[in-house]
């Protein structure tokens, strides 16, 4: 499956600048209610060990967030936030595919917010919950290819 980079245009110091961000649309659902799927736009981040999704999405999917196994995660600058892991179903699908790549894995939800300066507050797609199931090829700035991981 092929996903475009998300272009972002801004004008720092009145100079036009286009950045191409590795942000993609994916689906997330609660295994207890597979009919409701939310489609956040998340950052593909090979530097992140976990997949993180904003807590409002977890609440909308009727996860009892604070009942999940809790952990602390650390980011740039040494700050940490408390997260709660839940088994979720994730869907990866580009606009041309009839069937999504679908898998179940742990996703972290948190009631604490990421630092306000962080440019991605919705979802971060990391090793657990994303890369461990997929073969991801970055072809900047044209596209990102995502295929299911072939078993070894």
């Amino acid at each position, binding site marked *: 499956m092929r996903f475009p980079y998300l272009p972002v245009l801004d004008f720092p110091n009145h100079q036009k600048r286009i950045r191409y961000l590795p942000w993609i649309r994916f689906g997330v659902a609660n295994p207890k209610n597979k009919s409701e799927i939310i*489609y956040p736009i998340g950052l593909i981040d090979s530097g992140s060990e976990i997949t993180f999704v904003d807590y409002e999405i977890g609440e*909308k999917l009727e996860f009892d967030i604070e009942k999940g196994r809790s952990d602390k995660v650390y980011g740039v600058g040494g700050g940490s936030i408390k997260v709660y892991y839940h088994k979720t179903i994730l869907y990866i699908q580009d606009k041309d595919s009839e069937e999504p790549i679908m898998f179940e894995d742990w996703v972290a939800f948190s009631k604490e917010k990421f630092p306000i300066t*962080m440019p991605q*507050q919705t979802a971060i797609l990391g090793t657990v919950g994303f890369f461990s199931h997929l073969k991801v090829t970055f072809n900047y700035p044209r596209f990102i290819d995502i295929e299911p991981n072939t078993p070894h």
Partner: protein
Amino acid sequence: MSRTHLSQFPLLARVFSGVTVGLILNFIWVTIKLMNNQRRKVVNLGSILSKLKKGWIALSPDNKYLVATGSTLNEVLEKSKKVGVDNPSVLKAAPVKNFMVG
């Protein structure tokens, strides 16, 4: 009672009226197209996120068009449904102009 026949009009007048009608139709078509383009303007995420300090945005499933903005996820999902987009892409407001490492 005399009946007006098309052949009574001079050729030049007929050509002129045909061209005029064509130009008017073309003008209407271009205007409608421009209006549609304005309504369905391809999203510039940088511009939207720079104006939106908090809350959520919903985009069309191809991430090209802005569908709704709101203070909560529920609000943007409901607004999207009302305009016929059942499965929008959702994104929380964030300072996208900042660079990220991690």
